[in-house]
């Protein structure tokens, strides 16, 4: 008997020395290639998760210490992806705010390895509570939001052009009430010449110490003026669009405009904001070649982008790989950089203690095509495919049954 106890203790001791001793780990992802840019990890490692949090990322974590083990051999493991430009205030109105042009986030996130989306100002201070109750509180995906400076967000021209409804202090108050959810202020969709809306948006962002997201459809504001008014850390989206209402970032000779370079140097962040019309190879390719890589891969997820060249965030990431961006740079721009840009350093990493939002994905080899807003195709030989998505340690997507036991036909 004594001998038995001794053996048990001897066996338990090495385990006890490890952070995840005897069955303390809820879920252990074994043998995957971990890419965690925040912690400069790019190697084969195991990831241990307990109580919805990351407890350890290391090589050779013993399986005996885990309640459930998933073999991620041959696959990659990274923080769950962050999409900082979406429209998810879905409802039954026409249009975007509480409307049918927005999208139910869970339909597109889990299957793409996305665990956090940021709504790009579909709501404003007047209708954010409805958005929160109807969508944010109902979704599995973590939904954060930029608040539109217009009180009703994207609720049609009559509301969007109404200066009286752009009240910085009201936006600031709303942000104070929901600091966990509202991460910034948005300006976009204003057709006048008056800079008041822009200034009010900046004022609200300043007072709340949050970034300003500059979206599109500001036809009277020149690109140069927009960039000049932005502060370091503010984000411009639809960076590589080629539309009549906004000057593109590269000139007719395919060179990045000097004031764009200047803005980049000053710390203005460039988001993709792909959407249905916001991404063109003719702009993005020379920009990338000349050193203007996007800081984040915002998809501009909405009803008109999901079935077009955009598809989902993985497809946008794969597109950049086809354009020549290195895999680790792609993952950096899908995890840590967007987390930093919205000042949520708690996200986009696999540091010990972080929430266990994790994407397990494979690199599919083959002949693939990627399309831009103009219907132009480039070819690529690799494509990301999400195998498993964890949100707060819970499996919310499992493409091929990695986490499942094999069916026994008896």
């Amino acid at each position, binding site marked *: 008997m004594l001998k038995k106890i001794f053996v048990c203790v001897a066996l338990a001791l090495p385990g006890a020395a490890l952070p995840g001793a005897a069955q303390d780990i809820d879920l252990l992802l074994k043998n995957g290639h971990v890419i965690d840019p925040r912690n400069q990890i790019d190697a084969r490692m195991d990831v241990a998760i307990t109580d919805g949090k990351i407890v350890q990322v290391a090589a050779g974590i013993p399986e005996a210490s885990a309640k459930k083990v998933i073999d991620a051999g041959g696959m990659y493991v990274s923080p769950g992806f962050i999409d900082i430009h979406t429209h998810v205030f879905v409802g*039954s109105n026409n249009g975007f705010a509480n409307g*049918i042009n927005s999208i139910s986030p*869970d*339909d597109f996130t889990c299957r793409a390895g996305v665990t956090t989306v940021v709504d790009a100002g579909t709501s404003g201070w007047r209708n954010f509570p409805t958005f929160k109750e109807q969508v944010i509180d109902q979704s599995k995906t973590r939904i954060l939001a930029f608040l539109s400076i217009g009180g009703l967000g994207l609720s049609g021209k009559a509301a969007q052009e109404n200066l009286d409804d752009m009240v910085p202090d009201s936006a600031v108050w709303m942000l104070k009430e929901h600091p966990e959810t509202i991460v910034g202020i948005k300006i976009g969709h204003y057709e006048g010449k008056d800079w008041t809306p822009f200034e009010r948006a900046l004022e609200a962002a300043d007072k709340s110490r949050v970034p300003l997201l500059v979206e599109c459809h500001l036809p009277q504001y020149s690109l140069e003026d927009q960039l000049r008014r932005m502060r370091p850390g503010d984000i411009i989206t639809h960076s590589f669009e080629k539309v009549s209402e906004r000057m593109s970032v590269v000139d007719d000779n395919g060179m990045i405009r000097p004031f764009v370079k200047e803005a980049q140097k000053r710390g203005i962040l460039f988001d993709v904001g792909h959407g249905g019309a916001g991404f063109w190879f003719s702009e993005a390719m020379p920009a990338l070649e000349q050193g203007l890589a996007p800081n984040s891969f915002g998809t501009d997820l909405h009803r008109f982008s999901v079935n077009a060249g955009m598809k989902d965030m993985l497809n946008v990431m794969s597109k950049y790989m086809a354009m020549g961006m290195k895999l680790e740079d792609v993952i950096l721009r899908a995890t840590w950089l967007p987390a930093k840009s919205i000042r949520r350093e708690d996200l986009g990493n696999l540091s010990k203690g972080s929430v266990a939002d994790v994407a397990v994905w494979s690199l599919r080899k083959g002949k693939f095509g990627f*399309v831009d807003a103009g219907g132009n195709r480039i070819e690529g030989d690799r494509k990301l495919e999400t195998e498993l998505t964890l949100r707060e340690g819970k499996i919310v*997507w499992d493409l091929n049954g*990695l*986490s*499942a036991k094999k*069916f026994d036909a008896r």
Partner: protein
Amino acid sequence: MVIHKKLVRFYPLTMALVILLCAFFNKVQGQQHQEIDILIKGGHVIDPRNNINGLMDVAIREGKILQVAPNIPVTGAKRIVDAKGLYVTPGLIDMHVHVFIGNDLQAYIADGQTSVSPDGFTFRAGVTTVVDAGSSGWRNFRLFKEQTIDRAQTRVLALLNIVGTGMHGRFEEQDVADMNPVMTAHMIKKLFPQIIVGIKSAHYWGDFTQVDLAVEAGKLANVPVMVDFGEHDPPNSIESLFMEHLRPGDIFTHTFSYGPKQRETIVDENGKVKPFVFAAQKRGLIFDVGHGGGAFSWRQAVPAMKQGFKPNVISTDLHTQSMNGGMKDLTNVMSKFISMGMTLQDAVARTTVNPASVINRPELGHLSPGAEADVAVLNLRKGDFGFLDVRGAKLKGNQKLEAELTIRAGKIVWDLNGIAAQVWDHEE
């Protein structure tokens, strides 16, 4: 062009003649080849309704199928899609979905958040037509139509719930006083015969009352009834359901569900398909998959398939509780049956001509000339795949369908790899 020497003397006349002739030939040629909007070249066409299963081209003009034949000349086709190595089928029909999405937080599926927006799931899976399975009843169908059906790019048809409020809530679904066959039949026959294709009976905890009222409405409106026959504790007899209550052409859904406490299974505890199940199918009862979040188990489907029992229709039961689970989308559910040994042709028949005939919409589910050009171009991926059932068990497979291109009424609505797009030109 060779012009006879003698004619040269009459130059002006000759030229006029040449121009006239050219115009004439152009016109003739044009009728044959030059007015093709989209030509899908070199794909393997599977069109079960027309017994086509081989290499063919598909020509589309003005939103309709113009021609399906080998080697259609590319001359004059405005857009050519190279489908070499791919399969070309009629746009898939998903006969069991829930798409009455809304923000009534008190509601379950009707105008609620358990339903999904159709377009986000259909086109990327090659689906061009869905049939909503009783999310709405006669009281709220108009709202469903206004909110979703009229705004969707996907063709949305519907089975009307025998319960007036549809799938608003579990308790409302038990209210026999709100199961009105006459109103249900009016809604179908008099008001919306183009959209409502049948009746749904579901989630009823009692005896056969709900099914019988649904069948009564089905007789009045001359449409089939689909039955979700779960949630009876103890379960009601499915033999009685198949043989005594339903008519040939009526539909039993969630065929491979395993939840024996509330739902009698088609395969017994010894793994044998119950004999009356074959008899029922022979009698004309339609067996629908309706995968869903809780209604597809390998322990039912695998032995059934082995013993030669195939479902008549493969469908998803798409809603938020199924979309990210073992179901995923229609191509995934089809791939499961392929992994169990079903041929691709059989899987395509069960998502095209079969559902079209069950819902009595013979104009759908095929590529006959003149049909609306709803087309799916599918890739049969090879590799190591796993397929989950609702109980978390995995079946391995080495083939998986992926939708490359989807065309709805002649319009490209999904193009995974840009096979219909032009190659980007750096020098442009």
